[in-house]
């Protein structure tokens, strides 16, 4: 068990998140948006974490197809689960932010639309994983879907971006240095959080596989052994 060992990563992560939160609350308010803009310091890092997680899923998928090593499948699956959770969180936080700033919970901003679609794409990926029982079959199908999804995502993003640029040009706006540092700190903090979560999720995946192997060892059921002689009286030659 590795719970006690390597605790330092957890400790560092909690510390960085704490510093990041403190800084998010105390940094000067944004000139135009005021205090509401502070939501950005958790919203953007959440979204970043989700993108990072899905990228790792793609890498894991491709690596599984190359090596057929189940460790890569565990990486892809674990990362996708974390990604889906944080995509959901980023979307909800984004909507809360949008309400006061844009006057409504949702706008058809390309990043928002793409993120929402990412949520469903990887929800489907996780659903596919749940639906396949055999680990190798599951890994193979999930890897293929993981790669097809990853290939499509940039196209999804560009098509929405393009569509949007025709309708409502988005106003680019640079942000001030202290604010940018705060945001960067948030991104770093969430990246650490990702590392911690991924490690734990990987441990869970490994344990579940071990558990499966143990159960298998104890049952050792051979397909044919499940069938016994019928207890119904037999009359073979009547």
């Amino acid at each position, binding site marked *: 068990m590795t719970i006690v060992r390597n605790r330092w990563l957890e400790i560092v992560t909690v510390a960085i998140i704490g510093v990041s*939160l403190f800084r998010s609350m105390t940094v000067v308010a944004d000139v135009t*948006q005021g*205090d509401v803009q502070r*939501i950005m310091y958790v919203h953007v890092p959440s979204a970043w974490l989700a993108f990072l997680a899905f990228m790792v899923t793609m890498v894991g998928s491709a690596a599984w197809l190359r090596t057929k090593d189940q460790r890569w499948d565990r990486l892809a699956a674990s990362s996708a689960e974390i990604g889906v959770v944080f995509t959901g*969180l980023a979307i909800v936080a984004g909507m809360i932010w949008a309400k006061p700033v844009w006057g409504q919970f949702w706008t058809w901003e390309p990043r928002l639309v793409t993120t929402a679609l990412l949520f469903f794409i990887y929800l489907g990926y996780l659903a596919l994983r749940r639906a396949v029982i055999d680990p190798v079959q599951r890994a193979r199908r999930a890897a293929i879907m993981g790669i097809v999804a990853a290939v499509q995502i940039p196209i999804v993003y560009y098509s929405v971006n393009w569509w949007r640029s025709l309708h409502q040009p988005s106003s680019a706006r640079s942000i001030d240095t202290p604010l940018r540092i705060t945001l960067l700190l948030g991104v770093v903090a969430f990246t650490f959080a990702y590392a911690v*979560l991924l490690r734990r999720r990987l441990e869970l995946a490994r344990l579940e596989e071990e558990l499966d192997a143990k159960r298998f060892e104890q049952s050792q059921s051979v397909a044919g052994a499940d069938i016994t002689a019928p207890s119904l009286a037999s009359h073979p030659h009547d």
Partner: protein
Amino acid sequence: MIDLVGAQVSNAWWYVTVAYTVILGGMAAFVGWLGFRLRRAHRELDQLS
């Protein structure tokens, strides 16, 4: 980066609180769920061996 409808929202901190609660709460919930599944897996593994 963002199109603004109205600047300087009056109850800004309320929105900030809700958003931070969602993100941090969601993170905590995920950590809790992960921990629960980890403990359960450990327990079941112990029971089997």
